[in-house]
């Protein structure tokens, strides 16, 4: 479980998150919705142990992440995967991108050996990499250059890259914005697969129908924190908070 307790974060001018508490469990899909600029990306970065919040505690599986040593934090962070909102593939082939997370978890000795083997051209693709690419239906473009991929394919490779090293939690920052229905469908299916594998998935999205389709729970970020967080059906059908209701019905414009 990832748990945030009384987390506040500021980038200097005014708080983005304030006194926010929440948790994510393995095997559930939590959708984060909220207007642009409200702090969804910031929250995901905090959840991915990527950003240390200005105050409050971040716990992963019972460990207070920012109180442990550097090397233990690295080990904790390695239980989490994240797909960024913006394209962030390495300038390399699809395989190289997807296997990156596996590589950095190897010892230097193994890494040198596989580097050497790849120079000799006899480096087989690992099962985990192929499987991850299968999940996003890209297992036939292994050697393609990342920068020659379409936007949708690139987003799917990013997903596979985060999935390949079998994380316990997965943060997806607007994974389907800009994507056509087919790519969106492929990603949503992949989210389902991840959930079946017991991965706790947090998805930031602007698409409320998507949230309804895929999420077990929904958190609505308005202002500095959650106006509402709870089971999908209840939040959409029967929001207790007035602003949430307005936001969902599209009346609240920021």
């Amino acid at each position, binding site marked *: 479980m990832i748990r945030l307790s009384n987390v506040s974060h500021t980038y200097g001018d005014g708080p983005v998150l304030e006194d926010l508490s929440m948790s994510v469990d393995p095997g559930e899909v939590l959708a984060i919705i909220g207007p642009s600029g409200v702090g969804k990306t910031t929250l995901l970065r905090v959840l991915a142990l990527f950003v240390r919040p200005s105050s409050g505690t971040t716990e992963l599986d019972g460990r207070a992440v920012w109180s442990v040593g550097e090397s233990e934090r690295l080990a904790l962070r390695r239980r989490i995967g994240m797909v960024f909102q913006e394209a962030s593939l390495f300038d390399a082939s699809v395989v190289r991108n997807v296997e*990156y997370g596996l590589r*950095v978890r190897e010892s230097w000795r193994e890494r040198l050996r596989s580097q050497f083997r790849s120079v000799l051209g006899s480096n087989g693709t690992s099962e985990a990499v192929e499987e991850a690419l299968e999940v996003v239906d890209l297992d036939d473009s292994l050697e393609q250059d990342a920068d020659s991929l379409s936007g949708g394919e690139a987003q799917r490779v990013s997903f596979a890259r985060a999935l390949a090293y079998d994380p316990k939690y997965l943060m997806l920052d607007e994974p389907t914005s800009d994507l056509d229905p087919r790519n969106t469908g492929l990603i949503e299916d992949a989210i389902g697969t991840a959930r079946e594998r017991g991965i706790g998935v947090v998805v930031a999205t602007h698409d409320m129908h998507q949230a309804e389709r895929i999420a077990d729970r929904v958190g609505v970020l308005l202002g500095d924190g959650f106006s509402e967080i709870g089971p999908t059906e209840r939040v959409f059908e029967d929001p207790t908070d007035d602003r949430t209701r307005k936001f969902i019905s599209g009346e609240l414009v920021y």
Partner: protein
Amino acid sequence: MALDPAVDLLPALLDSPFREGYVSSIVYVSLYVSVIAVSLSTLVSVPVAIVMGFVDFRGKQFVKSVINTGMGFPSVVVGLLVLFAVSNQGPLGSLELIFTKEAMIMSQFVLATPPITAISLAAVTGVEGNVRDAARVLGGTRLDVALVVIKEARYGIATAVLAGFGRAISEVGSVLIVGGNITSSDGISKTRTLTTAVQLEARQGRYETAMVLGAVLVAIVLLVNAVVVRLGDTGGMGR
């Protein structure tokens, strides 16, 4: 003296006016000195560029301006400074480095480091923040992130190394001052490089032979360029 390169160069190349082993030993010294100096510069420059690109520290602006000044530093001045350092009277005098390849490597190191650092820094800064973040979020250590940045910036870094190599191998002022342009009496170069050999030939008015050596120098620079560009193309993360 009328000088028609097209006509004069060919015969000069065919019946070499040089003693056996002379040109190859000069080429060897040129490459030895430049390659070692540029390698050392690269080992220093790339980490410096990465630290400068990643970390904010006090005096960073100052370091940047030192590097930029260093880019335009006249080589003869560097030669003089190294001469003072390695001269018998200088702080490194006891190492007896004057008129040696090692002294030449020192001055070329000083010359090559600023351009390599500056161009690498530009390349490193050009790597998208997202890509760095991705390396980190996928479980990379600081070192892994640095390696990813180097790989992403490989073309820029290759350009930087080339620029440094170009500056080193075609530089004449400082290697002449600290190296002394020495060949042993059997005609094998000790500290004579292609550039100082060209200078020597020109001093004696032998412009044709100077042209031959100059052509060799240009050929080497072009060749190294081609090799590095190729490496940049095929190397890195398995393109």
